[in-house]
């Protein structure tokens, strides 16, 4: 693993750089750290960063770019007649890549002689057989141009990695020299290091952005494909969700509205359960409970978030559903017959709400706890009761955090499937009655993705369109939430 060694080598150099940079700065200051602009640590860290960042940056870039370059060059050498009908240059290149890797592996295992990597006049059959024997993936009998291309590819990559190792090490050493030379007392090491850390922080923040881009990309192509097969207007405005399995075309109704309605309804019920319970629990934990009770109750409530959803699903199906039916169902305790079956918006919503309690309670508790005591004192001193203080002083001050917690809970509610499927059913329906079965977008995404239908049919592709729709909608909701927080935020201190 030369790559591993290269990384180790760079790390060793950077370790040495840290020590050198630090000691040089201290030495130049005559051993008096006070004469330094920054703490000695920063001088070391500066050199460390100067070595690691360019070296690894270069390494990563090289690793990304080299295959592209090699592929370009190699694909240029493949004669046009190698590309069979119905195939494409891309597939041939995939084969070349596979063959090249296979040959390398085969040589490493000793199944092929080392000069097979060079020999231009190898018998394709022989190579194919040798590769198969070595347990490498080969699709069919290889042809001479493919073997040659594979050899070229291997040669280029090998040279490439040698050059890469040299360049990376040079960069590391250059960084070392640069960094150590900088290590003079007047050098603003802290600023440089902090700038570096800042860049890393930005990097971390951009991972979230990259994830979003990735999600959009992984949904968008299939979404477009879906809309090619199914009219967008029916998808967005259709009032019915009834995919037909047989995929005979035209038989499916894929209207998103009933699903959206179900999502909204179930999430609302779930939040209606989780938010009051969670908030009251948080308030009690942070304002009333003894430290010991808090220490016990809070983690216990958090267990609720960790119970696998399948348990909640079964709880909904076997316990809560029948219970609700016995109250709201035909011949139930209330004498109303609102609820037909155990599966209902209410069932799923209530159970989901239970699961979400800790999302609201724990986080809100932390935030409430962080509100300075002086705020509370100010209110108590005016003769306010605790609850008045909490409602009018503490909660407003903790609002951003609480909204965050609720958003998290809402997100989880929207993303949940198992409880929905077991508790609310799989049938989409547009109805106001919370005691009827409904289903959510997410549940349908999962079921259409994991179903048995034709993967190129609208019934399967609709999952992507649903994902996209949900994504856009929740984006809207989040913008709204941000706006609310901005508007009502109360900055204490």
């Amino acid at each position, binding site marked *: 693993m030369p790559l591993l060694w290269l990384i180790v080598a760079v790390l060793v150099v950077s370790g040495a750089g840290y020590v050198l940079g630090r000691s040089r700065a201290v030495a130049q200051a005559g051993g008096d750290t006070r004469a330094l602009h920054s703490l000695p640590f920063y001088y070391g860290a500066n050199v460390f960063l100067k070595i690691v960042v360019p070296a690894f940056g270069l390494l990563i870039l090289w690793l990304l770019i080299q295959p592209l370059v090699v592929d370009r060059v190699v694909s240029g050498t493949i004669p046009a007649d190698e590309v069979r009908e119905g195939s494409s240059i891309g597939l041939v290149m995939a084969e070349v890549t596979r063959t090249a890797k296979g040959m390398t592996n085969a040589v490493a295992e000793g199944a092929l002689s080392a000069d097979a990597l060079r020999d231009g006049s190898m018998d394709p059959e022989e190579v194919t057989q040798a590769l198969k024997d070595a347990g490498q993936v080969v699709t069919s009998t290889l042809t001479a141009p493919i073997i040659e291309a594979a050899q070229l590819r291997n040669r280029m990559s090998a040279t490439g990695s040698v050059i890469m190792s040299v360049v990376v090490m040079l960069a590391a050493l250059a960084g070392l020299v640069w960094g150590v030379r900088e290590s003079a007392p007047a050098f603003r090491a802290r600023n440089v290091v902090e700038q570096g850390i800042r860049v890393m922080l930005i990097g971390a923040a951009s991972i979230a952005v990259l994830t979003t881009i990735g999600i959009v990309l992984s949904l968008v192509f299939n979404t477009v494909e879906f809309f090619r097969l199914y009219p967008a207007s029916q998808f967005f405005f259709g009032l019915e969700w009834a995919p037909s399995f047989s995929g005979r075309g035209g038989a499916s109704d894929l209207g998103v509205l009933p699903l959206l309605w179900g999502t909204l309804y179930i999430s609302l019920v779930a939040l209606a359960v989780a938010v009051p319970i969670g908030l009251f629990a948080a308030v009690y934990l942070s304002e009333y409970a003894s430290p010991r009770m808090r220490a016990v109750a809070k983690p216990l409530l958090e267990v609720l978030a960790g119970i696998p959803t399948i348990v909640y699903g079964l709880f909904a199906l076997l316990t809560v559903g029948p219970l609700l039916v016995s109250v709201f169902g035909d011949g139930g305790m209330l004498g109303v017959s609102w609820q037909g079956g155990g599966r209902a918006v209410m069932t799923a919503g209530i159970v989901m709400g239970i699961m979400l309690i800790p999302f609201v309670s724990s986080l809100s508790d932390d935030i409430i706890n962080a509100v300075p005591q*002086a705020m509370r004192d100010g209110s108590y001193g005016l003769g306010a009761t605790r609850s008045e203080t909490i409602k009018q002083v503490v909660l407003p001050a903790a609002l951003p955090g609480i909204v965050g917690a609720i958003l998290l809970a809402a997100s989880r509610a929207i993303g949940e499937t198992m409880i929905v499927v077991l508790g609310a059913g799989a049938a989409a329906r547009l109805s106001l009655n919370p005691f009827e079965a409904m289903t959510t977008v997410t549940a349908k995404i999962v079921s259409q993705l994991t179903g048995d239908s034709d993967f190129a049919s609208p019934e399967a592709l609709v999952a992507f369109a649903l994902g996209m729709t949900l994504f856009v909608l929740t984006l809207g909701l989040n913008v709204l939430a941000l706006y609310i927080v901005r508007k009502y935020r109360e900055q204490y201190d």
Partner: protein
Amino acid sequence: MNDMRVIERDVDVTETKISARGVQVYYADNHAIKDVNVDIEDKTVTAFIGPSGCGKSTFLRCLNRMNDTIDICRVEGEIRLDGEDIYDPAVDPVQLRAKVGMVFQKPNPFPKSIYDNIAYGPRIHGLARNRAELDEIVERSLRRGAIWDEVKDRLDAPGTSLSGGQQQRLCIARAVATEPEVLLMDEPCSALDPIATSQVEELIDELRANYSVVIVTHSMQQAARVSQKTAFFHLGNLVEYGETGKIFTKPEDSRTESYITGRIG
């Protein structure tokens, strides 16, 4: 030192408002108040003086049970308001605090608008029947806190965006707005300029007509100017308590004397 003269005012009533007997306060192991006995009279301004850290704030906070909010704080002894033990389990600290208002040492405006800061107390106590009345209370309180002119144009600005002294006056106005029977003020003028200080002192004097006011101060002059009674604390002990005039002119305890004469202000 001529302005250290004690203004001789009639102490109209001598009815005892708050009486403390054998009060001990501990912060965990730290014995902060040691066996303090004191009678605070109604319609009187009582000043607590003493070196920093001697327990003035601690004792003050005992008087309206604000110490309840500090976990490690333990109060022993007996404190009676109008003859009723305020530490009695039957006593509702909320009602107590409505009667015994407090201005804290560090100004702590709520992160709300200036208006809401003041209106908060009257609202929870239901002192205003309607918005107009509330507006009136707010204005009156801000005027009494000597801050009306500075904030009248920005009642919607957050209380936290005020300057230090303004925040302090806001807190005074806030406390006054609830019309407590006893007002505890912990260094209410520490961040105030002389003019504002005199306005607050006027307020205190005015309050004295109906209420009892306890004020912690580091300024002997202020104590002498506004108070009729003075209590001198030292290392958690109540060293001396009596008529302000007497404390400042003929202290009995040598510690009092040395504190008063060792003064600089």
